[in-house]
């Protein structure tokens, strides 16, 4: 056979073989509905019917399904991320910015408009003032806590050509602070608190948007101390003498690390704090009694742990009862930034309720507060969510 014929056969067999193999593996591969690393549901085809075929719904749904279930997808995604990280050294990989030994989040470029930010701050402060009025209407106390996110805490670590949102934050925080002052709503901004402490690197995660246990502990402590000071309470504040701090040996897969398939995790571990003098309590999630724990401990010392270690992740409503009627009750609401704070806060109250605004949709926050009338209501939002009414950020509305 002539050389050219060999070459022709090679390309034809290679081409057809590749397509046949990819098709066969795609078809026989066990199907999963969930992509762990992407943290999302995988696509499913539209229902097959004459109607969906004729109106094009079914054909349109097939490509995303094939993409999500294609042969070798997980390996290829990992390979692609590896090449982007180590071969091409792209500044952003899967919306993650590997910089300064950290995995930061990519922020879309923006041109912050002071007037828009001012208006948003005024509107949010106005809504929070109304919520404060609801709380104070039955004799409760309302506090609002603003915590920096990872992009703010490590803003200096972004390359100059990427957006660290410094310009946005520089407009947002003063506008919000001023608006809250004007409305007379108690605001605890953790930014200056952390600045005063010298912004220790270990307080925030290198590979996740959230703070580390240390950052959460400082926040917890600042809240409790403010409550004691303002309200003349004597709430127990767990400290070095009353808290056992333990760092888990498991590798911590932060949300950024997860996005790049665990190829980098910055060598981080998660820490938990356990009271030396534990108290009995009961816990109910979304109305159903569940295990009386605040940490979702891993089964082994080697498996990856996620931020959901704290409080078992994001739950619409959690109620922890410590059955000590002499102590006040508290509602902590917000999003995932509340989780590690709650792991400690329950200890100081008779009842601790927790609402994750993104997941709780039974009623508005204001209605919820009016119904249960907790003695103290604390909202915790990070700088990114501070002015946003998305994901039920408005206390008087429920978004579907």
């Amino acid at each position, binding site marked *: 056979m002539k050389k050219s014929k060999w070459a022709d056969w090679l390309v*034809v067999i290679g081409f057809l073989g590749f397509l046949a193999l990819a098709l066969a593996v795609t078809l026989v591969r066990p199907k999963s509905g969930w992509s762990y690393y992407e943290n999302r549901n995988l696509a499913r085809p539209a229902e097959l019917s004459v109607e969906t075929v004729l109106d094009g719904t079914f054909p349109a749904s097939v490509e995303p399904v094939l993409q999500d279930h294609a042969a*070798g997808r997980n390996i290829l995604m990992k390979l692609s991320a590896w090449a982007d990280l180590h071969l091409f050294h792209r500044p952003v990989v899967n919306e993650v910015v590997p910089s300064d030994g950290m995995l930061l989040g990519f922020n879309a470029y923006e041109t912050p408009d002071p007037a828009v930010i001012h208006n948003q701050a005024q509107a949010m402060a106005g809504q929070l003032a109304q919520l404060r009025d609801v709380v104070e209407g039955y004799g409760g106390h309302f506090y609002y806590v603003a915590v920096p996110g990872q992009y703010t805490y490590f803003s200096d670590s972004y390359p100059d050509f990427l957006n660290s949102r410094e310009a946005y934050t520089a407009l947002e925080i003063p506008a919000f602070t001023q608006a809250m002052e004007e409305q007379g709503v108690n605001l605890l901004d953790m930014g200056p608190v952390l600045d005063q402490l010298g912004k220790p690197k270990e307080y925030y995660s290198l590979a996740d948007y959230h703070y580390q246990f240390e950052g959460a502990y400082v926040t917890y402590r600042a809240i409790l101390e403010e409550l004691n000071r303002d309200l003349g309470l004597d709430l127990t504040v767990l400290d070095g003498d009353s808290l056992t701090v333990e760092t888990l040996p498991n590798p911590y897969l932060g949300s950024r690390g997860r996005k790049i398939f665990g190829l980098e995790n910055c060598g981080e571990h998660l820490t938990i704090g356990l009271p030396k003098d534990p108290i009995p309590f009961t816990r109910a999630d979304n109305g159903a009694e569940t295990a009386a724990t605040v940490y979702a401990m891993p089964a082994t010392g080697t498996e990856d742990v996620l931020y959901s270690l704290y409080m078992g992740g994001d739950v619409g409503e959690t109620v922890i009862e410590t059955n000590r009627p002499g102590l006040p009750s508290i509602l902590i609401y917000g999003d995932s930034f509340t989780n590690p704070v709650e792991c400690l806060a329950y200890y100081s109250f008779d009842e601790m309720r927790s609402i994750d605004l993104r997941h709780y949709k039974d009623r508005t926050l204001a209605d919820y507060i009016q119904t249960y009338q907790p003695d103290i209501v604390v909202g915790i939002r990070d700088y990114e969510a501070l002015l946003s009414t998305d994901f039920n950020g408005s206390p008087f509305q429920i978004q579907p």
Partner: protein
Amino acid sequence: MVFSSLVFLLGFLPALLLVYFLIPARFRGLRNLVLLGASLFFYWWGASKLVLLMVLSILVNYLGGLLAGQADRRLARFGVIFASAVGLGLLGWFKYAGFLAQTIHNLGFAVPIPQVTLPIGISFFTFQGLSYVIDVYRGDAPIQKNPLNVALYVALFPQLVAGPIVRYTTVMAEIAHREENLPEFAAGVTRFCFGLAKKMVLANSMGQIADGIFNQTAANLDPGLAWVGALAYTFQIYFDFSAYSDMAIGLGHMFGFRFLENFNYPYISRSVTEFWRRWHISLSTWFRDYVYIPLGGNRCSRLKHMRNIFVVWLLTGLWHGAAWTFVLWGLWFCLLLLGEKFLWGKYLEKLPSLIRWAYAMFAVILSWVLFRSVDLGQAWAYLGAMFGQTTGLAQDGQALYYLLQFWPEWALALIAFLPVKRWAQSWLEARGSAGQAVALWVPRVLALGLLALSYLELVTGSFNPFIYFQF
């Protein structure tokens, strides 16, 4: 359905190849029938019930062809007029009715603006069908009495939705008698894989950059960022469209068809005239043969010659889209071509090649800004930003980000727009048997590597538009 999809690669193509090649070659009619059925399915998959419109177009062109080939010239002329009126009427309704109504509305007349879904590829299959009828009328092609053959010509899936615009005379013999063989199939596979990779790796990356920049407020862009966006779109449109042509030509080879080339490294042109000899060749030759020459071409007075050029470029602009930006884009090229023909062309030829190339690329890049902009306002603001008329609010490192983030693709793009493949092939073939062996094996092995890379991009990426589908 698009070629750069898993549905096509893992489903449609293997299934069609299997069925098609299981039928012995002597049953040519059956093979054609399979190809026709597959082509209609291919179109239906993406266009749903609009496939009926294409079937209507086929029917009209078949009847038009029957009439156009009659000895009675009145009847023949009626055939052409009938096919043109229905074909262009449908094109006019589906593509231009909204634009026309909007324009009238903007002039202050209260007319309803129809909301019409544009059938994909309508401009391509309308022009293709018309070329058959006109060629029959002119006596350049015989009447095709078998409606299935006309249907196969119009609907043949490789070139159905984004060209190249195949002339009936190019494929009429192949529809009836063609030979599918190993060398052709292998050449087709190689060409297809290169086209697929060009699309998945280069066009999509450049598209992400262009979309990221063009979707911002144009007046805020700093000049560097505006130029990065314009360059990215310049690369995107070339790699996207030429990739589709590569894949179409490659698929044609697999099934025994030889479509003519549609691109010939247009970005190495040293004048706008040369650019249009190298860019979308099947469209420019269509307009040349069916509009420009019938109007008199250049064998007439200078004024009529200029009018002919104007008409062709007005229609070329409108063919690409129903918007004033496309009209202006066509007129921009009209002006440049007239200028080169009557004013500065002879001076241009005396300049060094590099300067001529820079001039041509400058003109082409500016034209793509018009082409990409959603309206004249954006086009004007974007062009202004490129030349410093900007608020500069977006001076935030984005240009550097887009260069660094996509540096491998920029580097590849800068190589791929040049005829490197042609140079390498000539160089290797001049090196004796060793060089010839490299020239034989490397493209084929590379093609398989590119297929794997494209599969990776398909499976892991989500940005995969085909911009020429809108035409």
